[in-house]
């Protein structure tokens, strides 16, 4: 390229840069706005509700003597709707008989700052649920790793066509609705389900499986095992075969090969697999509900039941506080796990 030409194209390039940067801003605007409103603000909402209290009040309006009255009374435990009506009339100086009520209801709104919701997160029932969630999801993650690791290795060493078909086989159940699959497991483990039928045929059982920790952990492993297999498989399929051959040539036995070669190279896949199994396991409510017939309550179950109460009893606020704590626990756990992957130097594979 001649100097003049290079200069010309450089000037074109700088001109283009200016143009695209304005264009880029415009292109980014819609999603920036969308994610600000629907991703960032909701997170702030969680914080807001977690630290605020719910205030109940009676909204009462009535007419008496041709005048309209609207009044708001703070709700109290010993104040019924009828009592609130009486009070409202009394406050307006109207006898109850003269008043025609057009509206009377118990309403809620967000009140001031409080730490009571977080205190409820630290209540014994909730502490137990958090500990159980943590232990169960830890167990489910560990079991998934133990199953997925040899499986992913075998998969990555099989032929190209077999790999393609097997990938399809692994992904197929993932796309089936989790409620239906979990429900199907529930039916298998039931007292008169398939397993107990088989046991009875052998003259054994019946074994009560639903409601045990094992059933809940099984549900977690079943639902999230593919999330462990896929990332580990991805890093393993990138391992250079000549490295494995070199290890063979240099006299490594399979244990040394695994420990000194395959394991270090697959660390990034393991880390993302751990996170992808741990996060949905610790936050599930459907699996624990189905696999324990509602007997085992995890954090997700508590959040779900609190949020269902909506305003009553400050359900939204306590649910938000639990969500916030869950988010922080997960953030810390993923941060710790990601640290591991950096320190091991395995990051170079990605």
């Amino acid at each position: 390229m001649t100097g003049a030409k290079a200069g010309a194209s450089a000037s074109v390039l700088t001109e283009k840069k200016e143009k695209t940067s304005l264009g880029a801003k415009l292109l980014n605007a819609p999603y920036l706005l969308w994610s600000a409103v629907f991703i960032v603000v909701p997170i702030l909402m969680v914080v807001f509700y977690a630290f605020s209290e719910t205030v109940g009040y009676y909204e009462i309006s009535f007419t008496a003597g041709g005048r309209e009255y609207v009044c708001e009374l703070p709700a109290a435990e010993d104040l019924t709707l009828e009592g609130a009506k009486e009070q409202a009339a009394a406050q307006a100086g109207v006898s109850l008989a003269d008043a025609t009520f057009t509206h009377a209801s118990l309403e809620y709104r967000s009140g001031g700052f409080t730490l009571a919701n977080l205190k409820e997160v630290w209540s014994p029932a909730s502490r137990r649920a958090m500990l159980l969630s943590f232990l169960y999801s830890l167990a489910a993650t560990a079991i998934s790793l133990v199953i997925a690791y040899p499986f992913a290795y075998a998969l990555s060493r099989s032929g190209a066509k077999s790999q393609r078909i097997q990938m399809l086989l692994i992904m197929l159940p993932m796309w089936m609705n989790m409620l239906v699959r979990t429900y199907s497991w529930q039916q298998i483990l039931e007292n008169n389900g398939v397993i107990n039928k088989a046991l009875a045929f052998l003259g054994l059982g019946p074994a009560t499986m639903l409601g045990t920790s094992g059933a809940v952990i099984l549900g977690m492993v079943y639902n999230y095992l593919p999330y462990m297999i896929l990332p580990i498989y991805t890093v393993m399929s990138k391992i250079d075969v000549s490295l494995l051959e070199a290890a063979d040539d240099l006299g490594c036995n399979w244990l040394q090969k695994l420990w000194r070669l395959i394991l270090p190279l697959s660390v990034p896949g393991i880390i993302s697999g751990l996170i992808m199994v741990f996060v949905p396991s610790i936050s599930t409510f459907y699996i624990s509900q189905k696999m324990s017939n509602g007997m085992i309550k995890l954090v997700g179950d508590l959040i779900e039941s609190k949020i269902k109460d909506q305003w009553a009893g400050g359900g939204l606020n306590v649910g938000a506080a639990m969500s916030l704590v869950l988010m922080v626990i997960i953030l810390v756990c993923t941060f710790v796990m990601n640290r591991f992957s950096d320190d091991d130097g395995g990051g170079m594979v990605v």
Partner: protein
Amino acid sequence: MKTLGRIVSFLVYFFLYAPLLVMIVFSFNAGKSTSVFSGFSLRWYGELFSGGGMLIECLRNSLLLAVLSAVIATLIGTVAAIGIYRLKKGFVSGAILTVNNIPLMNPDIVTGVSMMLLFVFAAGLFGALNATNFYTLLIAHVTFNIPYVILNVLPKLRQSDPTLYEAALDLGCTPQKAFFKVTMPQITSGILAGLLMAFTLSFDDFVISYYTSGPDFVTLPVYIYSLVKKTVKPNIYALYSIILVAILVLLIVYNAILSRSDTKKEGN
């Protein structure tokens, strides 16, 4: 090692497919039970196809929602991916990508609850009676779909050759024409993969829908969740056996798209 791998593989596939097998077998159950088999019959399939019923209505809702949210998310996500690609790597692009990661990293229940709180808050502000309805559900689905679209499109953009685009400009193309003629074909497979992924995620979602949908528009998973508390009949198994076949076809198409783009890359 090899035989161990084979045994583990077999057990894993057995484990993964056992409930699906049970589902298919009991979808042909003559009785009403989903755990006691009382004879072969096609009655549940017949019931699905003959009478509409709640199940079919909810299926229609779920499909409509999945198509709408996937298309909207693909539009916004593709534009956003191009925008991010054109930004210089720095604070802004880092911030966008971090925010983009939030729905991917957060558990569904937190995403669902956080969006629901936003809608409850907004309903309080505007004095709306129902905090959640079809539109809030659509917004929620678009929101959790966009990151997956970006995740599929952005790498394709980064793989694409920028000099081709510049050459098109040098040869007199307008930026728009250069984009649609040169850049677009290079990222089409990513856009399609993103669209397909968004569709399936939306169709399958339960937790986020559970918190952001209203009584006016019930999706299939939300309906099934409400059912399970009473009793489930094998008609759900029949419906999902059909869906299983549909998903199998979809996955094969998806794989074909992926492998086509792979061979193209190798060809280049």
